[in-house]
């Protein structure tokens, strides 16, 4: 037997939402939770806000705002003070993805179209080869990556030029740029990741997952990409030429599938949420593990997020069981 896990469970405040939680994180200082029933909870005191007519389907957030897309075809931006603003509307459609961009810009997809709204409110539209559930802005420049069937596209919406195509057969789900803007990575329907070097479109395949990867998180130094989809977080090395020919690190191996991952914003510490409701913290430098939640409501962890300085972690499950961890200072 291993030594019993050190636990942080006594530093967790338990929360109950009774609904599928899509997003857990922090807006400035305030913890925030976004629920599939359409409610957005900001802070512990204020009543929830409900910008959409009905449910929320997709969420993206940065430190200052939350973007939500609903089954009402609308995209809203919500601020820490509870103020909301309608950014776009695609009538009769579900919003399939949203992304936060630089300078208050935003992107969303609906049907076979992607939309970018810049900070001044100008909206640009791009026709896609298929619908898209993965959008991500590049770390530099005003550029949007879009995952779709048979590859991904990288688009400069203001340039007026067609997007750059990164082709690979199959259905691509989520997409992310590496923080150094050298790699574009997608998760795929076929239980694998695909990557391209942006410079020469060279391919990288990261496979071996027993399930789809639906959660990806970069370390603060940009050298590691943590992923869900296996019984343990799979962490790929991105120093120098990327993961090609290198083995990934496997962290927090347990007899339950990893459903969410979130790197600490300042240290090489990874928060891992599992399908059985467990949450662990793993330090990459020495593989030491800390227990945050031993099962809770037993429902898969569906949301994980750190605050800006990495002292608090918000998490929640599909069944709506959540918590706030405050780390000892």
């Amino acid at each position, binding site marked *: 037997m291993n030594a019993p896990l050190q636990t942080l469970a006594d530093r967790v405040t338990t929360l109950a939402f009774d609904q599928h939680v899509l997003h857990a994180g922090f807006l400035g200082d305030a913890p925030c939770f976004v629920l599939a029933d359409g409610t957005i909870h900001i802070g512990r005191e204020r009543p929830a806000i409900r910008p959409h007519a009905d449910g929320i389907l997709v969420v993206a957030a940065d430190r200052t705002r939350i973007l939500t897309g609903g089954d009402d075809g609308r995209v809203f931006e919500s601020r820490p003070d509870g103020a909301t603003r309608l950014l776009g509307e695609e009538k009769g459609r*579900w919003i399939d993805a949203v992304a936060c961009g630089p300078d208050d810009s935003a992107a969303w997809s609906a049907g076979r179209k992607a939309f970018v709204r810049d900070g001044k409110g100008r909206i640009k539209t791009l026709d896609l080869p*298929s619908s898209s559930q993965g959008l991500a802005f590049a770390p530099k420049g005003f550029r949007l990556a879009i995952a779709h069937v048979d590859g991904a596209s990288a688009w400069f919406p203001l340039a007026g030029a067609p997007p750059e195509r990164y082709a690979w057969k199959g259905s691509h789900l989520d997409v992310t740029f590496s923080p150094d803007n050298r790699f574009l990575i997608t998760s795929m329907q*076929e239980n694998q990741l695909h990557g391209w070097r942006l410079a020469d479109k060279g391919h990288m395949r990261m496979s071996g997952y027993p399930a789809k990867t639906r959660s990806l998180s970069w370390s603060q130094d940009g050298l590691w990409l943590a992923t869900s989809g296996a019984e343990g977080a799979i962490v790929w090395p991105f120093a120098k030429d990327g993961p090609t020919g290198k083995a990934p690190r496997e962290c927090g191996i347990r007899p339950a599938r990893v459903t969410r991952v979130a790197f600490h914003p300042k240290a090489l510490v990874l928060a891992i949420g599992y399908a059985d409701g467990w949450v662990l913290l793993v330090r990459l430098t020495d593989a030491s593990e800390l227990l945050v939640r031993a099962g809770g409501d037993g429902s898969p962890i569906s949301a994980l997020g750190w605050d800006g300085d990495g002292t608090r972690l918000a998490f929640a499950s599909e069944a709506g069981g959540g918590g706030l961890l405050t780390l000892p200072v």
Partner: protein
Amino acid sequence: MSEKIPVTVLTGYLGAGKTTLLNRILSEPHGKKYAVIVNEFGEIGIDNDLVVGADEEVFEMNNGCICCTVRGDLIRIIETLMKRRGKFDAIIVETTGLADPAPVAQTFFVDQDVQDKARLDAVVTVADAKWLRDRLRDAPEAKNQIAFADVILLNKTDLVTPAELREVEARIRAINPYATLHKTQKCAIALDQVLDRGAFDLDRILEIEPAFLESAEHDHHHDHDHDHECGPGCTHEHHHHHGGLKHFHDEDMQSVAIAHEGEMDPEKFMPWINDLVQAEGPNILRSKGILAFRQEPRRFVFQGVHMILDGDLQRDWKPDEKRVSRIVFIGRDLNEKALREGFLACAA
């Protein structure tokens, strides 16, 4: 984890009456809430709280299996719906009139996330009694929909003569003798004949006798005295009499049933069936089997959609039950002789 949400797939060629059936299902006082996934969003009014427009995005899985196509939009929609489970009890997917049902069905076997939360209940095909005969001749989609069905509603029977109705029924049976067939007007049918059929549930595949054997007398000699009644313009169908029911043979789509009065050797059967669907998967639309394996007290039951097979040991053979191994294929250009020889070579 709570029970899986049942999903009923409604197919049928343009104008056959799919939407009539859908609205009938939704308006009956069953106390159930349905999430409805439709195409051609908003074209015909559907009176339901939860209607989702879909794009029928069919793509090939990148897994080396050429007929392994799935509906990407369906995966995304079902995943999203499952986040609001309290809002509905079951899902109905209405496909376009030109859709091949296979990618829809395969989605439920290929995608693990969908499989964890939803189960395919049945493929229900609505056919137009007056026009099906023509469509079987000129529209491969219509033939696929009949071949694939677990339940067929032969609708608009008031628009044809009894003789025409018998003929169209016989033509359906030539393609798919295993589906449950109901003759309807305006899709009037008891909902329990359409919903909660468990057609893909291995535990509920009890018998795989062709349905026409239940009603018509039969002698099982296929005396192929082909009687060409069609003109020279129509070369496809031949028919012969089969008991009391006119029996057609469809040149393009057939079913092949093989029985072995005894046990099979699993060491021979499993590689044979796997190799068969790998090689012939594009042509085999559906397959089913109930097998007696050597020294195995339980029945082995399997079903397949193109190359995808799903099989398991099921309940025990009853003491009074004959240990007979039966297998059925519905498909295009099936080589009956090769199938028969291949299957019988797996006998224990």
